């Protein structure tokens, strides 16, 4: 599918949920409101778009922007070369967005990683815990205000079950 029709089609489907659409040199990019995410996912998974693979999910932190955190999704189809990048800027001190675990099982770990490293919460995630770091880790290290060399308290000794 052509990049243009993909973006135009999604713009029509989401109406005022779309904040911006652009052709970046590598992929079509769509910026949407967090409320529109689930509708977007339902739309891209169906015909005619068929972007049924959650290729990647990550987050950006830009402390200078009004909405500091932006969750970035990459959707792909493995049957056609079509790909789409969706950016969801989040507002507020406690950024949160809907979980995609009901659509893709790999979202469970991807969202846990973003929660772990950025502190973004995912509504409806069945088991939102840290993934890479240990329980009791203080702070979220990929936030820009987390110092590179900050030391952590020693985790308490674990007693076996």
């Amino acid at each position, binding site marked *: 599918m052509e990049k243009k029709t993909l973006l135009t089609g999604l713009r029509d489907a989401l109406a005022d949920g779309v904040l911006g659409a652009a052709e970046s040199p590598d992929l079509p990019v769509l910026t949407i409101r967090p409320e529109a995410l689930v509708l977007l996912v339902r739309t891209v998974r169906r015909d005619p778009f068929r972007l*049924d693979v959650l290729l990647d999910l990550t987050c950006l932190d830009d402390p200078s922007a009004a909405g500091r955190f932006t969750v970035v999704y990459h959707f792909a189809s*493995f049957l056609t070369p079509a790909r789409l990048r969706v950016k969801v800027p989040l507002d507020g001190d406690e950024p949160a967005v809907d979980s995609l675990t009901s659509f893709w099982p790999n979202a469970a770990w991807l969202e846990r990683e973003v929660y772990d490293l950025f502190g973004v919460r995912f509504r409806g995630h069945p088991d939102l815990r840290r993934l890479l770091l240990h*329980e009791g880790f203080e702070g979220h290290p990929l936030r820009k205000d987390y110092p590179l060399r900050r030391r952590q308290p020693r985790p308490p000794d674990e007693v076996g079950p």
Partner: protein
Amino acid sequence: MTTRIQGQARRESLLLNMGPSHPAMHGTIRIMLELEGERVRNAEVEIGFLHRGFEKTCENKTWFNLLPYTDRLNYVSPLLNNLGYALAVEKLLGVEAPPRARLIRVLMGELSRIADHLTCVAAMAMECGAFTVFLYSIKAREFVWEVVEAATGARMTTSFIRIGGIRADLEDGWREATARAVAETRKVLRDVRGLLDRNPIFLKRTRDIAVMSAERALAYGWTGPCLRSTGVAYDVRRAHPYLGYEDFDFEIPTGKRGDNFDRYQVRMREVEQSLRIIEQAAARLAASPPAIAAEGIDPAEAIAASRGRRERRPIRLSPNLAGSERERYAEILASGPWAVPPKEEVYTSIEGLIRHFQFFMRGHGLRPPRGEAYGAVEGGNGELGFYVVSDGTDTPARVHVRAPCFHIVAALEEMITGLYLADIIPTFGSMNMIGGELDR
């Protein structure tokens, strides 16, 4: 701290910890199991034991000097990691490497893929008790690594692929070394197939064990040999060709059942295809011989002479820099501010020295324009993607790695539930979990 599985477990079942350090787990990963006899009733996988803050580190390095860190992602095929990162940054810059550099990248990338697949097959077979297969495969990998070592100077931490090209041209004698690696690998493939393909013990432990359907594999975002074993012929080299892969003749092997045996088979057949690509790339490289670096004068003499006048004669470089002489630059690096200035100029001219400092000083150097790019290569385990964001400075605003085995290992809990305890070993072996890229 109570884990999920501890909360869910029934009172009469046995809770068992596999890992994080377990002799049959190559890599630190913890699998907590709820067992009923030898059956796995429930499983929970804990990762992150090799987390070293790769992405945070990258945000505090320059675009150029974070490259060695990418070696350590999938440490079995470091050249493919270098390549993925370089391609992503090249997308940001809008640069393309020269044709000869692209061919050398293909050659080196495919050698790495062979090393990756051989290591996976070797470890998987060894964990099933076939130690001979391990020794044979590692022997073939040695020949592959000899080629890599001659070109890059290192066996694992190569840092050979550079933004805009490669570090150096190939060493003399690469053709013979490559031919030997190809021949030896073919021999080993035949031996390994002879030992495993119809081996009843191996078949019992792999045939129809841990079956993954194509739908579930896609839902988990699987890529690479694991996805192809379920019958989906998706390969980044074919779907989104880079480095001119569309000009190479190769097949994409797929499996039918998506079980452990198919994952082994697909890897074995992919090694054969990689060997074919290597032969084609080697023939093309040999057809266009490199610029010959002239026999140069002694560096000390050149430096002494450069005090009086601009030295224009070629200079003999240290053997460590062989292949990166000034004459070869046009063939190995795209010209532009992303290329490290040739050493001859750095040593003998003030402009060269200034360019050298400008390249390596913080705040100067390589500064891609503001923007973002996602670049992906077919890594050993599947689609290895780099999502890079630039804010216009010499430090990346964000480097995110789409690690293929992250998505594959995410399915491990589901795959081993219902199996026997002993089935975990070949299942885990066939997934080729690599801690470096999984935990980052």
